[in-house]
């Protein structure tokens, strides 16, 4: 089974420092074994945050000299996990939509990391995360304009021409409202679909982000999903969100969903996940959890409903690793 040329990897978790000591009791560490695990307790693949594995080395003047891997416990855990399970890389700092030059040395370092971990692909978000040489360490939204479509598509083509690993683009959550018409020449689904098509890029579909955006911006998440080129979906993200209230300038209270990755996946998001799988068939699916991270047993419990939906909708009951 494959999606947009990428293998179906099953259901996985993000590899986090909090689980470095406990992960090993939940995975089969015998390389080469045929694994067909569908019970609670199974982790089919892990996603490594690129920026948690690679860091800049600085020269005596405090300038970037290159990239080095995080050593110590991180290096040990990454190596051990990659020996046992399929691995994918996920980034938050590539700034795919930014105007600063694409950081090709970072792409090369990501490739080298991917080779060391035998990663299947790498991904990052449709956003800007740096501007004018300043790293913002957040995913800032892009305007839905023809200019942005052309800019981002060209950047992804450049990225794909340079990188050895396949690249997937993720749809981010965003909170800016009622943009000026100059910033919203098309709807979000059209913006994303045009970039995917123009750059011939795979999609990491974050279903929680779709739900959060649809709620915050008042559109139908199913219609959004149906408007995307779903044949390009090679991975899915699921995560939890929080509801937060704000006071507007007029004194009114506005409630927004915030994509916090700090909670179990909400039921409407799981329903939307089923809607996606009905249209795509089995897709490698990863549960993200980055804040208030629970212990691994609890995380694995959260995979149970995800697996149940995968099995109910697609009939897939196992992944066999070579």
């Amino acid at each position: 089974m494959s999606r947009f040329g990428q293998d179906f990897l099953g259901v996985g978790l993000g590899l986090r420092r909090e689980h470095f000591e406990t992960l090993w009791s939940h995975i089969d560490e015998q390389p080469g074994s045929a694994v067909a695990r569908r019970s609670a307790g199974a982790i089919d693949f892990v996603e490594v945050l690129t920026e948690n594995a690679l860091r800049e080395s600085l020269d005596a003047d405090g300038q970037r000299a290159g990239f080095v891997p995080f050593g110590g416990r991180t290096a040990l855990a990454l190596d051990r996990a990659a020996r046992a399970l399929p691995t994918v890389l996920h980034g938050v700092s590539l700034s795919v939509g930014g105007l600063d030059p694409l950081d090709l040395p970072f792409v090369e370092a990501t490739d080298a990391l991917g080779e060391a971990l035998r990663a299947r692909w790498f991904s990052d978000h449709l956003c800007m995360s740096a501007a004018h040489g300043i790293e913002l360490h957040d995913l800032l939204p892009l305007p839905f304009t023809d200019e942005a479509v052309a800019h981002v598509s060209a950047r992804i083509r450049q990225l794909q021409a340079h990188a050895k690993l396949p690249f997937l683009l993720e749809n981010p959550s965003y909170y800016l409202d009622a943009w000026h018409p100059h910033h919203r020449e098309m709807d979000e689904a059209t913006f994303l679909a045009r970039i995917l098509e123009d750059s011939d890029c795979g999609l990491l579909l974050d279903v929680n982000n779709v739900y959060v955006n649809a709620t915050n911006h008042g559109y139908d998440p199913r219609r959004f999903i149906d408007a995307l080129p779903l044949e390009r979906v090679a991975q899915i993200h699921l995560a939890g969100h929080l509801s937060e209230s704000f006071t507007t300038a007029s004194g009114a209270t506005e409630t927004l969903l915030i994509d916090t990755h700090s909670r179990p996946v909400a039921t409407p998001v799981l329903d939307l996940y089923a809607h996606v799988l009905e249209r795509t068939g089995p897709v490698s699916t990863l549960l993200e959890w980055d804040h208030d991270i629970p212990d691994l047993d609890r995380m694995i419990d959260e995979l149970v409903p995800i697996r149940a939906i995968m099995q109910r909708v697609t009939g897939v009951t196992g992944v066999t690793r070579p």
Partner: protein
Amino acid sequence: MTLATYTATLLAAVRAAPDTSLDAHAKALGASPQRLGIYRSFVRDHVTSVLAKLYPATHALLAPQWDVVTTDLLAAHPPRFRDLNLAGEPLPRLLDARGHAFEAALAQLEWELFATAVHPAVLTSSDAPTLNPTLTLFEQHHPAVQLLATHDDASLSADTPRPARLEVPQVVVVFRKQDHTVSFRVLDPLSARAIEALAAGAMPDDDALGHALALGLVIAPAP
């Protein structure tokens, strides 16, 4: 509005000081100031949360001024690296420049603890005793080592008495052990002898070598 103008406007908004109005930026973008403020908070919070993790003891000592310190740090040293931790690297220098001499020394020690924990070197044995490749030596005029060795972070606060400046600076050694724990201490004469000899390509005397091996400053040869 072009993508370039949009980017510049958004950048100015998310880097605006926490207590300033975003009305003008929001108007230019056609968004509400409240929703634009979400991004300003996110951008700031990502850095401040990592600073608190990198510098727990320094944070505790400077708690009442911490917001001002982090605002000053972000203004003077905008993050330029993908590694979010590196946004905190200039903090010791900034504290020193602000007259927080003891806290600057403490922050330098905490930074070295982090840098050593993630040092890319792999600690493997070779045919002969080798200097631990994660080892760092630096001189300090304030007894930050003694404070950190005798207090846990929870017991530190703005009221914690700051030790007096040392009349003679001390050399601090930080290194990662083979079990991945990070150790720090004032360099003692036996350790200094062992490090000096191995750094010069010579074999230390037995007393110095045995002492440095026991501490983990030197990696024992493979059996």
